[in-house]
């Protein structure tokens, strides 16, 4: 064991003496964390299409028409799901807003003279900016509905006939008579305005009728809030980059030992190949654990990153390092020389990082790319890191990414170790 520790300590010592290796393992990720953190500062999670959950309790043609209109609105991805499931999604922070079309919504939409259509909006209070945007889209859709109604004499007439029957049933009064006169005239409002050539100047007829939609907003405290700030995301990415930098540096170290002749000395010493493998693995594990821990410590102390669970963060750090130690060993085999090891290491790491959210945060990527990212160990690493830093994973939720990471690590290490060339030339 002492020999393994001695060899691992030597490798770590050399890594930190190697300016280029140290740069890629520590400073490059740190610079990325600060750069992207600053770049995205002030933005909340704002994907191109905001996912909203929608519950239609009205189930009328009008409510379906409204939902269809919402689906066509740019910036929203509407998913109709049962209310309980939708509430759970809001609680979990997976959906920022739940919109519920309550019973009577469709009737009010078709006949806004007697009642304003109402929706309930359940929001995660941390997503206030997204909620504001959704509110705007809802109002816009309701306004468009009203405009369509006012410009369709047949629909308006049908609504007024129904309203006239109602008002005629009331006791006679001046107000009742004026209302009936107004209802009689209203289907012709559009054509009268057009006849006067004032269509554009009035901007439509909805100005006559107050707000087109009543929105009752309630808040549901998400149990898993989003990132406390942009650095929570960028530091998770930076930690991933320390793993990538560390694994590529260590994958080169075996080739370097071979080309510099020190592998020969090691093989002549009273140590076994198993000792050497264990030492390389331990060194890579130690270095990546140390650097990623140092980075997140910096994020916590200086950049106000607040992990939701420290024990799960420790677990994520360990599993991420195990995964990349295995990748290191596999890369060592593929690259016979230090140049080849470095080239192949970075050549594989960069596209996989891109796919796995190492460059652009996963939540900003298109859905298909997020799905494709499942093949990238970087995605699982980020998922584990983010799960502990801001996604608020439970232990059960953390098990999947951690199990994937450990499995990749063990598999890659085993394959690498079995195929490693121990010759010295």
């Amino acid at each position, binding site marked *: 064991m*002492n*020999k393994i520790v*001695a*060899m691992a300590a*030597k490798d770590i*010592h*050399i890594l930190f*003496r*190697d300016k280029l290796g140290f740069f890629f393992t520590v400073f490059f990720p740190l610079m990325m964390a600060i750069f992207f953190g600053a770049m995205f500062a002030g933005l909340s999670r704002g994907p191109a299409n905001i996912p909203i959950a929608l519950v239609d309790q009205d189930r009328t043609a009008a409510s379906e028409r409204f939902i269809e209109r919402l689906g066509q609105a740019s910036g929203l991805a509407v998913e109709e799901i049962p209310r309980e499931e939708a509430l759970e999604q809001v609680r979990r922070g997976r959906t920022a807003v739940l919109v519920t079309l309550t019973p009577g919504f469709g009737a009010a939409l078709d006949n806004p003279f007697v009642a304003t259509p109402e929706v309930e909006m359940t929001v995660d209070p941390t997503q206030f900016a997204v909620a504001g945007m959704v509110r705007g889209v809802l109002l816009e859709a309701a306004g468009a509905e009203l405009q369509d109604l006012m410009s369709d004499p047949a629909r308006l007439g049908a609504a007024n006939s129904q309203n006239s029957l109602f008002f005629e049933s009331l006791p006679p009064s001046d107000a009742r008579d004026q209302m009936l006169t107004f209802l009689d005239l209203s289907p012709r409002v559009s054509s009268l305005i057009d006849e006067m050539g004032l269509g554009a100047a009035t901007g439509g007829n909805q100005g006559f009728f107050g707000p087109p939609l009543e929105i009752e907003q309630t808040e549901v405290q998400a149990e898993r809030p989003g990132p406390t700030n942009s650095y929570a995301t960028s530091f998770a990415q930076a930690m991933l980059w320390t793993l990538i930098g560390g694994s590529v540096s260590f994958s080169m170290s075996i080739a370097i030992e071979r080309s*510099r*002749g*020190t592998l*020969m*000395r*090691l*093989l*002549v*010493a*009273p*140590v*076994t190949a198993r000792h050497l493998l264990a030492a390389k693995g331990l060194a890579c594990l130690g270095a990546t654990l140390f650097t990623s821990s140092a980075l997140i410590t910096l994020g916590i102390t200086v950049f106000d990153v607040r992990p939701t669970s420290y024990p799960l963060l420790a677990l994520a750090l360990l599993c991420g390092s195990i995964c990349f130690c295995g990748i290191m060993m596999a890369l060592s085999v593929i690259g016979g020389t230090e140049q080849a090891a470095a080239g192949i290491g970075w050549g594989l790491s960069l596209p996989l990082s891109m796919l796995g959210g190492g460059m652009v945060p996963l939540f900003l990527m298109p859905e298909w790319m997020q799905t494709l990212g499942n093949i990238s160990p970087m995605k699982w690493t980020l998922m584990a890191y983010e799960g502990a830093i801001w996604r608020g994973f439970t232990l059960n939720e953390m098990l999947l990414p951690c199990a994937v990471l450990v499995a990749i690590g063990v598999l890659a290490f085993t394959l690498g170790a079995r195929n490693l060339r121990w010759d*010295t030339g």
Partner: protein
Amino acid sequence: MLVFDHVSKSFGDLRAVDDLSFEVEAGEVFGLLGPNGAGKTTAINMAVGLLEPDEGVVRFTDEAFDRDPRDAENRRSLGLAPQSIALYEQIGGADNLRFFGRLHGLRGSDLEERVVACLDFADLTDVGKKVVSKYSGGMKRRLNLAVAIIHDPELVLLDEPTVGVDPQSRNAIFERVEQLREGGKQVVYTTHYMEEAQRLCDRVAIIDRGRLMALDTVPALIEAHGGPGNLVVRTGDSESRHETTDPLGTLAELQARQAVDHFQYLPPDLEAVFLNLTGRALRD
């Protein structure tokens, strides 16, 4: 005692070592002399267990043991200074020694004593903390040698330890090798410089194309295979060379015929031995 018993090793069609047999005694510097590609490094690699012979055996024997080169216990008793400088350049000389000492099981004060002794042996005490990348070529060579003896091995294998070093550093290395012999170590010294073999080695195995051509002490090899020496004589502007086994008699004969202004006797050497044994010069 290191024993090669009818050892052969091939790489594809190339027979790098062909039926090589020798024994290295305690307290001697044993030379493996031959041109580049003669099979010296392959023999060294088999001696330390990095390569396995195709035929024959390599053993480390004593009254008490008979070990394979790959035996972990055996590895503690041998030290190798590879032909290329094999050091961690990013760390200090002392740290290199400390690291390899730990691999050989040294700890605590024992380790520190050996580090100090090896730095002193390599004349690097003042620069022990300096990173190796800042060392001169000669300093790296001396450290390369010192690392091989950090664990005080019984057998030290030096594979062309003076390649690429200046004459001053070469002399420094010779002195270290002589110190090792005085310390009772077995030293296997490979070289293609006959002057080094002639100066340092108690016995020399001359190998060519993997085969052992001759093995004996330097004087015995010269006696057996060196042939006559050369008497170089200058008379006026002319210079002539005369092969002779009796330089004084030959000089007297030449003096009797005409006055000799200047003469020099060149005795036979290992270069002549190699030429006579192989028909080729050592540096071909």
